[in-house]
Every structure is written in C-alpha cells, then in structure tokens.
C-alpha cells in the first residue's frame, strides 16, 4: 500500500473523470444529430439578474417579465410601435363617449394545467388588483375603473366597472375617458382556479409564484434557485406555437455568462458595450442589438438658485458635445438624443428646439443670466460660483463614463462640476427625501444639485406625467426636479382624456416642445443593448418590448 496505493487511487479517479467527460461528449453529439432531423431543440439564454417571482402582478421587474411574458398572456400586447393589439382578446370596441370597453376574448384557450380560460379569469385578475389587501404595485391599472376605489376601501362587494357578459366577453367602464387605459391592461392574466382562495395580500407567499400556471406559449418546468429556469413549448398554444422544444434561462454575472457563451453552454447573452470587441471576432456567434425606449439625461434641482434659471440649463445644454459622448463611449450602440421622449416612439416630436454644441452660445446665455467670470475663470453671479455636484449612479458603465466627459465639457466653459458616485437606492434617497421619522417630504435645494439617469416609456407616454406635473412633486410623485408650468400641467391632464390618437399625439408633442424650450432635463443619448448570439439560433430579434417577447419564433439549426 502506501505511496503506490495512493497514486493508484489518483490514477483511477483521473481515468473515471476522463471517461465521464468523453461519454458526455458523445451524448451531446448524439443529441445534436437528432436536432438536424426534428424541429425543436433547446435555446439557453443568459440574464444578469434572477427574477424575484413569477407572478406578473407582484412588483414586476424586467427580470421577472422576461420570463412571465412567455408563461402568461395578457389581454392586449404592444406591437412594434407600442400600440396595443389583442392577445387573449380577439377584438375590442370602445363606446362613443370613450368610457366603455367591450372585449371579445379568444375561444378555446386553456391553462397549462388543462382548465379552460374564461372571462372570469380576466375579471378575477383585475378585481384582485383593487383588493384592499393587495399592495404590490399594479393598482394603477384598474384605478380608472368605475367603483375600483370603492372596492379597495371595502365599500363595495365588487368593482362596478368590471362586468362579465359571458364566457368570452368582458366589459370595462371607466370613470372618465382615459386614453392610457388599454395599455394598462398589458399584464399577465392570472388563473382564478389556482389563486381564488388566496387573499391578494398573501399572493407574494404563494407557491405559484415559483411554479406558475399561465396560458402562454411556454410552460413552466422548473426553477433551480440561483441557476436557471426551464420552460418547455406549449404545443397546444392558441397562437403561434413555439418552434423550440425547450428554453432555458440562466442567471449570472455578465462576465461569467459571456464565458459560458464562449464555452457554448449558453446561446444568447447580454454583452457590456465595452466587451463587444472581444466577441465581434467569433466565427460561431454574432452581435444583435436590442433597441430601447429610454433616454439618458441630466436632471437639475430647480430649487437651487442656479438651476431655477432656464438660461443656465440652456447654457449647460449648449456646452455638451453629445456627438463626442456617443462616438467615444457608445460607438454603434447609441445615438444622440435631442428629445426626452424616445426617438422610436410615437410620442417623439419631429420638430423641437435643438441645443447644438456651441460653447460661445453657452457663454452668451450665462452672461445674459447675469454671470461673470471671476479671477479663476469660473462664472459667478452675486458672488456665487456656478459650481455643482452631479450624482452619478453606478451600474451602467457608459453612464458613468459620460458623466466624466460632461464634467470636462462644462469645466471648459467655466463651470465647476464635482461628480459623486453612489448606488441607485442611495440616489433615490436624495431625489425622494424623507424626514427623520421616515415620512417622505419635499425636495429642498440641499438634497441634490444635478443627477444623471435614464428614463423611458414602458407602455405609455402618460408615464411622464408624474415626472413633470406640478402636483406630483415629492412626496406626491416623482417630479423631483421641481418643474412647475401651468401649460404643461394642462396638456398632461388633457392628453389622458383625449381618445383620438392624432390629437393626443399632438398634445404630447406640445408637452415635449415646452419641456425642450425650458430644457428641464438635458437629453444626452439613447443606448442599445448588444447581445451575443450563437449562430445556431435563428429568429432572435429583441426589441424594446423585452428580450424574450417573441421567443416563440426562435429556432435552432445545426
């Protein structure tokens, strides 16, 4: 025994390992040979963060909806222009006064467990969102309905504005005509037969959040915490059935997932813009970009004496060389933004004041505003130097780099800028400040000077209302820049009740016109997200609706 015995054992383990490796390789080869013949196969897609839960009605984040879009169906879904089209709804009609929506549902739809889907499921889902115990962030969807508030307060047994006519017809009645109402119905319909005995306040703890039953094109198979979620094709799907047999979503750090693409364990993975050169040269994979509906911008605290003056904001805007930010940081994965409404969305107005890069103009505007350069070359007014701190949330490399360039650009015209890196939750405590006893309070000039962030449309441009309406200043909303303009307030309210699409679009264009004149936010750029995709995958064309939004049309070839 002794030394020889030990070496013998090591040798044995080694041989076993090697044979195990080679046998798995054979198995892989066998399975690839199969996929040549059969339509089907598996695609593995990587995400950088794991879903919290798979109930679309509980604090849905992008990592959640990337999965739930495939498992659940909504009444309506956005098309490529973010206009709504029917999914579970066959069609719908809006009454003359714009208050009654009658939805005809698709016939013969079944849940993944075989139960029939009916209008009762739809009514159940939307009624639950107004339940007094429900507090997970989707009440706004039903808030426009007649009787929703009464039901929430426990004054009514049901919501008057939701009426099941028959198994395939449901009627919604809103208090006032409300244009964004239909887009608010873009949320997965939940199975009544699974959740009916659970109070919506307890949904978060229910097991179905981790093993959901939907009606969608993919069925849930399993979720290995911290590792992956496995879905399989729903071959009985009422719409386009998936071409794949199986879809696996893995979760992990960006670099790790990228390495898994290189080792071919993962087919699709997000790539940080700075890493794109390292995958461009791969002969078995390509880069695909996902456009987004978000705009990166700098926001100013108008409570501060400097930024209260639109001339100062305009001067800072003219000093920004957006072209150089885009070319040096984003390359082909970004473009200049001149509108705070995303350029690919119908809310983007083609005709807006443009703040081109012109430092002479900046200096002129600052002088008009009463600033003069002091001995150190910094502009000052009444002895106050034009110096400020810009808050830079970490997490997006490109945003952090842009902040550095902005600082240089502004310092060139004689403005003193300091940058402060912080994580997003910390920034939020500055934008939405609280008193010592935990109550939200108004923003003061001491909370922050300026910040850089991204903002975009999720489903409807009405989302801008609580950022610019004067009644939505914290603690009542997200107007932390403290913007207040009567005309904008009126326009923002008017567009919610305007049912005619063209007229509504014009109202929103008027809003963006006024906001651009005041330059309350300086729009900087729009960013696209690159993905690396193994060439065996066909049909991966992600857009702003979500990476997996059209997963049913993905396929694999060998």
């Amino acid at each position, binding site marked *: 025994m002794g030394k020889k015995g030990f070496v013998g054992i090591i040798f044995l383990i080694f041989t076993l390992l090697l044979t195990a490796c080679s046998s798995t390789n054979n198995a892989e080869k066998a399975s690839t040979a199969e996929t040549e013949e059969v339509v089907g196969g598996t695609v*593995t897609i990587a995400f950088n963060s794991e879903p919290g839960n798979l109930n679309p009605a*509980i604090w849905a984040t992008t990592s959640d909806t990337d999965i739930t879009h495939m498992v659940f169906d909504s009444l309506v879904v956005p098309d490529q222009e973010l206009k709504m089209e029917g999914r579970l709804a066959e069609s719908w009609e809006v009454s003359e006064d714009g208050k009654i929506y009658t939805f005809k549902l698709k016939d013969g739809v079944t849940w993944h467990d075989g139960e029939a889907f009916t209008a009762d499921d739809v009514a159940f889902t939307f009624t639950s969102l107004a339940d007094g115990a429900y507090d997970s962030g989707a009440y706004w969807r039903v808030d426009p309905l007649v009787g929703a508030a009464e039901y929430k307060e426990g004054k009514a047994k049901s919501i008057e504005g939701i009426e099941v006519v028959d198994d395939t017809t449901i009627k919604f009645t809103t208090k006032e005509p409300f244009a964004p109402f239909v887009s608010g119905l873009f949320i997965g319909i939940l199975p009544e037969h699974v959740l009916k005995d659970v109070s919506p306040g307890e949904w978060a*703890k229910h097991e179905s959040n981790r093993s959901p039953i939907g009606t969608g094109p993919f069925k849930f198979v399993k979720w290995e915490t911290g590792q992956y979620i496995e879905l399989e094709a729903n071959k009985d799907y009422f719409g386009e059935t998936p071409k794949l047999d199986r879809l696996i979503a893995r979760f992990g*750090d960006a670099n790790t997932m990228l390495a898994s693409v290189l*080792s071919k364990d993962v087919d699709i993975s997000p790539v940080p813009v700075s890493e794109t050169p390292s995958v461009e040269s791969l002969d078995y994979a390509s880069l695909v970009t996902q456009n987004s509906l978000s705009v990166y911008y700098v926001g100013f605290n108008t409570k501060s004496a400097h930024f209260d003056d639109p001339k100062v904001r305009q001067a800072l805007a003219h000093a920004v060389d957006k072209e150089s930010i885009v070319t040096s940081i984003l390359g082909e994965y970004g473009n200049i933004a001149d509108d705070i409404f995303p350029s690919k969305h119908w809310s983007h107005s083609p005709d807006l004041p443009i703040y081109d890069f012109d430092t002479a103009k900046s200096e002129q505007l600052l002088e008009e505003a009463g600033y003069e350069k002091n001995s150190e070359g910094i502009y000052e007014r009444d002895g106050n130097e034009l110096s400020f701190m810009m808050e830079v949330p970490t997490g997006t490399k490109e945003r952090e780099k842009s902040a550095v360039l902005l600082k240089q650009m502004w310092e060139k015209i004689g403005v003193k800028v300091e940058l402060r890196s912080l*994580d997003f939750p*910390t920034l939020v405590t500055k934008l*939405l400040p609280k008193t010592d006893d*935990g109550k939200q309070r108004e923003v003061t000039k001491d909370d922050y000077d300026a910040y850089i962030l991204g903002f975009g449309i999720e489903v409807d441009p009405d989302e801008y209302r609580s950022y610019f309406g004067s009644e939505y200043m914290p603690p009542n909303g997200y107007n932390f820049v403290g913007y207040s303009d009567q005309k904008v307030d009126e326009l923002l309210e008017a567009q919610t009740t305007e049912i005619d699409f063209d007229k509504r679009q014009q109202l929103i264009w008027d809003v963006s016109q006024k906001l651009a004149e005041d330059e309350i936010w300086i729009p900087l750029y729009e960013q696209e997200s690159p993905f690396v995709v193994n060439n065996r995958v066909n049909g991966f064309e992600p857009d702003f609706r979500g990476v997996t939004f059209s997963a049913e049309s993905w396929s694999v070839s060998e």
Partner: protein
Amino acid sequence: MKKYLIKRLLQSIPILIGITIMTFAIMQLAPGNPMQTMIDPKISAEEMQRAQENLGMNDSLPVQYVTWLKEIAQGNFGYTVKTGQSVGGLIVERLPATLLLTGTAFIMAFAIGVPLGVYSATHRYKLPDYVLTVISFVGISIPSFFFGLALIFIFALKLGWLPTSGMITVGADYSGFQLFVDYLKHVTLPAIVLALPTIAVVMRFTRSSMLEVLNQDFIRTADSKGLSKKVVYLKHGLRNALIPVITIFGLSIPFLFGGAYITEHIFNWPGMGSLGIQSIVAREYPVIMALNLFTSILVMSGNLLADVMYAWADPRIRY
C-alpha cells in the same frame, strides 16, 4: 469540558444579540430601502406609502428590531420584502451549495497545505522552499476575482477541460455517479480559487510550526536513534507540529465563508454568497439580517471547534 462547553454556548447568546443589533443599525444607516428601488411613475405615492406601511417600515427602528428578534426566537426568519419568499426557505435552498463549495475548499486547503508545509520545512533554504514561499505569497495576495477569471479563461475557455460556471450541467438531468462527476467538474475551479489563500496560510503555518518542532531535543534523539527520515518527520515531527495548525481549522471557516461571497459571484455558484450580494444591492433587509446571523453562528462555532480540538489534540490543555 462539559462545563466549559456550556459556558461558551451561554456566552455566545449576548454576543449574537450584539452582532444582530450592529448589523441592523449598519444596514439602516445605508441610504435607501427596498421599496425605493422599485421607483415607477405609474405607482402613486400613496400606494407606495401604503406598501411601506404594511411592511412595517414606518415603525421606529427599535420597534422594527424587537419585532424581528421576536420572530427569530420563534424560528421565523421573515419574508423577502419584494417577493414574499420565506427567508428561512431561501437560506435552506442556498445552504447546501455553499457547504459543498466551502467544504471542498476546506478539505483542499488542508490536504494540500499541510504536506506542502512539511515539504517546505524539511527542505528549508533550498530551492523548493523558496519556490513554495513565493507561491504562497502570490496565493495570499492575488485577488480572487482576478484569479477566478484567469482560471476560467485558461481551463474552461482555452483548454476546455472544465465548465465555466454553475453547479451542474443545465438541462442534462444526470443522476447518481454521473451527477457526482458533473459536480466535481463544476466545483474544481471555484474550490481552487476559494482554497488558495487558505492553502498558503496553512502551508506557512505548518512550515514554521514544523521548523520549531524539528529543532527540539526529542527530534535529535529520534534522529540519532537511527530512525528513518520519514518516521522522524512524520511521526515525531508532524504530529507535534500539527497542534497549532488545528487553530487554523476553526479560523479558516469564517474566512472561507467570506471568500465564498466573491467566488460564488464569479462562478455563478447558487449559494448564500451570491444571495448575499443580490440582497445587499436590493436592500433586502430580512435576508441580510438572516445571512449575518447565520454567518456569525458559523464563525462562533468555528472558534469553539478550534478550542475543543486543541484540547483534544494536546492533552496538556485543560479547560
């Protein structure tokens, strides 16, 4: 001994309470709370306020802490703020992965560190000793995220011998022996990364302890009796030299669990470390508290274990 154990266990209770109070305070000092990361223009401010109210986040801090402590005393670790998962369940789900990884690294650290230390000591001031010394310094100083990525690059991407990340081959559904082999392949790289600094420490410790013992009279006696080198070094030398090394046993446990935070992140290992990082970013207070409590218990048991083993290995030590 029994009395000593009971005393130590009783002592640990106030220490644990102290630790939880400090964790709680530090966590609350960090700006932001879980709900504030959910900022969404469509959700009205009142609705947000109500959600915070329901979660008890508007209570005063001492009240929140006492509520938490009461629940813990009944074995309830609470629920995650955003997704309502049971925190106890989450930890139970993640614990095996972390134990497997740290356990493998632990065994690796001692199985490699001790022999290398002996070798280094018996070849003192010769080339192998210098080489091992340099390697151990590299081992202690190299940042684990860099070392991890380097290993992934070499062994997973260039050579293709081992998988890049994860704990099992996704979607392969292995069982039995195949599953074990699959696991071994996945654990190798992260365990090396995690174990490397401990290997270095164990090696240096064994070396110096061994050198001290080898200078003692009874070794000279054994040597002059004509015993073989092997018997002198291993039977007489190592046995005595190992006593101080045992301390490292206990002390390396918290070190390995701490290192697992980064290693698990790099290798996408589904353990408590990666859960911890996610929870800190999301300000998931209940998870952070539970993880901290859990890790403190581990550290304290590690220390206790070291003391107990010390007495067991060296009969001269009495408590």
